[in-house]
């Protein structure tokens, strides 16, 4: 029930009451306590997410090391994927989540035998199949969580070897049927892998890598994603160099806004 205020001017300013004072005070206490529990719950959830995230990033780094990288590759993938998502006009929230999710895309390689992963030269069809299994294996490791960032990470792990023309693996998805997060990660992974030294070859020059990327537009990669990359190539490459230099920790990958 609304009780009329004596002063009509005060009423216009403040609006009417609908509860008596004691009831209002009690209700505010409830809301206050509820707010405290809400914040405590979110804080606990953040901590659990963080611990889980850190463990999975370390596992991804271990897989990356097995694959003769230095570990910084996966950090770069995160930041480059974020930059490319923003260049594509995606929301800051999506881009940030992709930064946290994309570095784990190859975590499944932890389960790939070294005899296949490190084999010099061409793989036999059987070995190729074992190698390709890392996508599904990664998705399985990451997909056990209901937390959005790990759902996205699982999606990226599963789809980062799909090709825009439908000839990729594991599902042979084509075009927009491949989730955007996977299409973006595929492009930055390609570029970053080309522009770093490998045991079997030196790094390609940036110009060469960009040409190779362009050549795969519409074949391996979504033309819209490639176009956005090329349009921002200079900034993205500068970011790549900066990350290699500054070597940001997993903490900043997880925490920074």
């Amino acid at each position, binding site marked *: 029930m*609304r009780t009329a205020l004596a002063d009509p001017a005060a009423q*216009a*300013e*403040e*609006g*009417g*009451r*609908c*509860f008596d004072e004691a009831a*209002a005070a009690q*209700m*505010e206490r409830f*809301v*206050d306590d*509820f*707010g405290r529990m*809400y*914040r405590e719950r979110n804080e606990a959830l953040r901590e659990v997410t963080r611990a889980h995230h850190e463990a999975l990033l370390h596992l991804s780094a271990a897989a990356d090391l097995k694959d003769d990288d230095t570990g910084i590759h996966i950090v770069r993938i995160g930041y480059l994927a974020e930059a490319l998502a923003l260049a594509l006009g995606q*929301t800051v*929230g999506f881009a940030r989540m992709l930064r946290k999710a994309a570095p784990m895309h190859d975590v499944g390689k932890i389960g790939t035998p070294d005899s296949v992963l490190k084999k010099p030269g061409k793989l036999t069809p059987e070995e190729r199949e074992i190698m390709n299994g890392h996508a599904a294996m990664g998705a399985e490791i990451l997909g056990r969580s209901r937390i959005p960032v790990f759902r996205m990470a699982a999606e990226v792990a599963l789809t980062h070897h799909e090709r825009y023309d439908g000839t990729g693996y594991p599902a042979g998805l084509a075009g927009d049927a491949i989730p955007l997060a996977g299409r973006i990660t595929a492009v930055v992974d390609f570029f970053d892998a080309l522009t770093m030294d490998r045991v079997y070859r030196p790094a390609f020059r940036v110009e060469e890598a960009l040409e190779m990327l362009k050549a795969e537009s519409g074949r391996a990669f979504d033309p819209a994603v490639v176009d956005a990359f090329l349009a921002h190539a200079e900034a993205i490459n500068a970011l790549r160099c900066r990350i290699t230099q500054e070597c940001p920790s997993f903490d900043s990958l997880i925490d920074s806004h």
Partner: protein
Amino acid sequence: MKKILIVEDHMDIRKLLKMTLEFDDFEIHEAATGDAGWLLARELQPDIVLLDVMMPGALNGLDVCRRIKSDPGMRHTKVIMLTARVQSDDRAAGFSAGADDYLMKPFSTLQVLETIYRMEAAL
């Protein structure tokens, strides 16, 4: 920090809405009438407006919503209507006035926050 304006004529409801928003970090502003709400909205250009439908004064919630939605300075502003009735007429009227979402009273604390997070994600 996102700027949120609450326009609601019942002081107690307004207080509870404000307390709910204080669960998180928002810059919160309040108005008790449609007229005051519209003036404040123009001044603040808030990110999100929580807007009651039925209010005394020259402008009701739907009027304020229409004005916000046709103001070039508030293209980014999301409007969430607070409707007392379960009638779908209210919903339809809200959406045709340009509202982005609506919440039914008595409002759920968690739903208020979830709706705001959804709006924020789209900002």
